[in-house]
């Protein structure tokens, strides 16, 4: 429903673009040159997404750097989650969805028909809004990915992957003695860190996070944010968030979406202190959203 509404309003936006509104000018804007040079890990060009007849995303072009946290912000239904789900092709599971344009990871087109989507998803991990551990043991939750992708040759190797993933997710200390317990028996924050451990167990290059803290209390949120900050040294992290404070705290790059269009993108400090676009300014100062 949300997506439908966004697409409706999106087509109205389109007219504004044609009339030369300032919002339209920002749509095709590429990353600003300010700040350190950006090496793009994920590169999107002119991406359109349709659900049936409704256009959910319009002409999105963005460069996302490796080893940094990029935050997607914007009001509900603005297409930021839709775009996130394009990067690991989770939109493929929705039968009516259609994606056009080009998204590359390290220069490789991920919508190339010859590309294996299962391998893509092993390279691009994802953490969801609501913690969704499998109803299996903590160990099995983390071991599942390496096992189906054949990343461990034997049990000790698998144990090693599980332990180091839990360690990296900052969960090992809490669950070391109860790896056999069900993943669902953990608290919400622990479950979310378990999901992060599960995602990094298959050594992805990119980790997508779809509002990873929105179902958590402030303390659990702080722990996840710390974790994200540590992880960015090794991974390209893209996160969708509703909290502008969170985007400001955690991310180095920020992209602002509105009504299916990418309005503005740039270094987080620039976006929050000196937004170029009027809509961005209104949104981050809480005037609408």
């Amino acid at each position: 429903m949300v997506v439908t509404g966004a697409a409706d309003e999106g087509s109205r936006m389109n007219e504004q673009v044609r009339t030369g509104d300032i919002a339209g000018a920002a749509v095709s804007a590429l990353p600003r040159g300010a700040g350190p040079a950006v090496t793009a890990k994920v590169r999107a060009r002119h991406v359109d997404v349709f659900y049936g007849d409704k256009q959910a995303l319009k002409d999105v072009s963005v460069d996302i750097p490796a080893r940094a946290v990029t935050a997607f912000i914007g009001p509900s239904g603005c297409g930021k989650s839709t775009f996130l789900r394009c990067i690991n092709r989770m939109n493929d599971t929705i039968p009516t969805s259609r994606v056009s344009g080009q998204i590359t990871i390290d220069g490789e087109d991920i919508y190339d028909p010859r590309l294996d989507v299962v391998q893509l998803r092993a390279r691009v991990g994802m953490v969801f809004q609501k913690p969704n551990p499998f109803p299996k043991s903590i160990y099995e939750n983390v071991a599942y990915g390496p096992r189906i992708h054949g990343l461990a040759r034997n049990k000790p190797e698998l144990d090693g992957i599980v332990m180091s993933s839990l360690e990296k997710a900052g969960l090992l200390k809490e669950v070391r003695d109860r790896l056999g317990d069900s993943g669902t028996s953990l608290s919400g924050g622990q479950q979310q860190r378990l999901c992060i451990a599960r995602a990094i167990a298959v050594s992805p290059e990119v980790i997508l996070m779809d509002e990873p803290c929105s179902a958590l209390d402030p303390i659990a949120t702080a722990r996840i944010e710390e974790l994200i900050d540590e992880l960015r040294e090794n991974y390209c992290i893209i996160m969708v968030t509703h909290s502008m404070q969170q985007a400001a705290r955690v991310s180095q790059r920020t992209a602002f979406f509105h009504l299916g269009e990418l309005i503005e993108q740039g270094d987080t400090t620039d976006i929050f202190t000196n937004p170029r676009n009027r809509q961005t300014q209104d949104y981050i100062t809480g005037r609408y959203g």
Partner: protein
Amino acid sequence: MSDVSSTLRTGPATGHWRTAAQQRRLRRRYAADRRMQILGLGAIGLAVALLGILFGSLVYSGYLAFAQTRVVLEFRIDPALVQPDRIQDGNFRSIIRQALFQQFPEVTSRRQQTELAKLLSPGAEWIVRDHVQANPELVGRTVNLLVPVADPYDQLSKGVIPRDVPESQRRLGDEAIGWLDSLDRRGLVRTTFAWELFLNADSRFPEMAGLAGAMTGSFLTLLVCLLLSIPLGIAAAVYLEEFAPKNRLTSLIEVNINNLAAVPSIVFGLLGLAVFLGFLGLPRSAPLVGGMVLSLITLPTIVIATRATLKAVPPSIREAALAIGASKHQVMMHHVLPMAMPGIMTATIIGLAHALGETAPLLLIGMNAFIPSVDSIGLLEPATALPMQIYSWADSPERGFVARTSAAILVLLGFLVAMNAVAIYLRQRFERTWS
């Protein structure tokens, strides 16, 4: 904040909740609530009462079948009548008669002796024979055995045949009653649990008739039904729910599966008769064919219920598995099916319980064979099933079969309750909590 509270205090609705009209409305609402509750309680009460009447009447008419009147007699295994090396060909009929006549030396006329011999069940012969066969050293010695009396005497002892009506309107004459009373005075008559009901196969004689044959037949039939309907049902449901393209053909198939669940079972029986027996030439009355027909009946139920449980598996689990790079098949086999399994099992057991009580389709493929021995039952041999046994007993004229019919219904209901209990247990035991 102060704006809001002042509006509440001084707003136009002040005192509105205390007006007479508002009070009336409130009373009407309470009355409607009460009416609703009384109606619901009444409906439940009626259902419970009817169920109570059903069970009460079944137990009332059936409990006598669980007891059997027997007499202890001293049998002399005469070597002249039974050769030790050919025990099965021995003349046990004479041994029985001698043992009985020994108790009544005053009965001498041939007519009276013939009458007296009818006191014992014809099955007594086989009981003594089996005992001697198991203990060959008994030949030439005497042995005390508890043997069942014939049905009329059993009914007399249980009070089903009244003593206070004129002799001409009674199944047993005064003389016959005298014989049983005489044995009773000597302490030779016992009433014990009727093991025959569970251990014997069918028989023409009510006191020897049991459910073992029908239970074996039902078990084999359900086994075939289970082995066919679980893999077929789950495979069909998984394909339709997870893999089938959503087009006109699949929606047509879906609608028809739902319709099949409502087709009268006798139609499936006709189909079995035409296809399995007529076209494929499978043996008549066999549990194999019975199971195939019953699986036709349970399949739609299992497919529908399995799809419902698959749908109920939270999408977050599928997404989690997909996002980690599991293929569609892996998501299905590793996550969705295991989570749906308790629901599928429950549906299957309830489907099987339904199949256990099914009568009409089995009648059409001739699964109402008379099975006097459990040994003869096989997948391809003629067999009968519990509901068919009930049907044929209900049709029998002997007094003893009245109680046996009710007892058989109680046994069938017992199986149904047990199967449903297993289903409930599985559902509660394996139902997992997930986020």
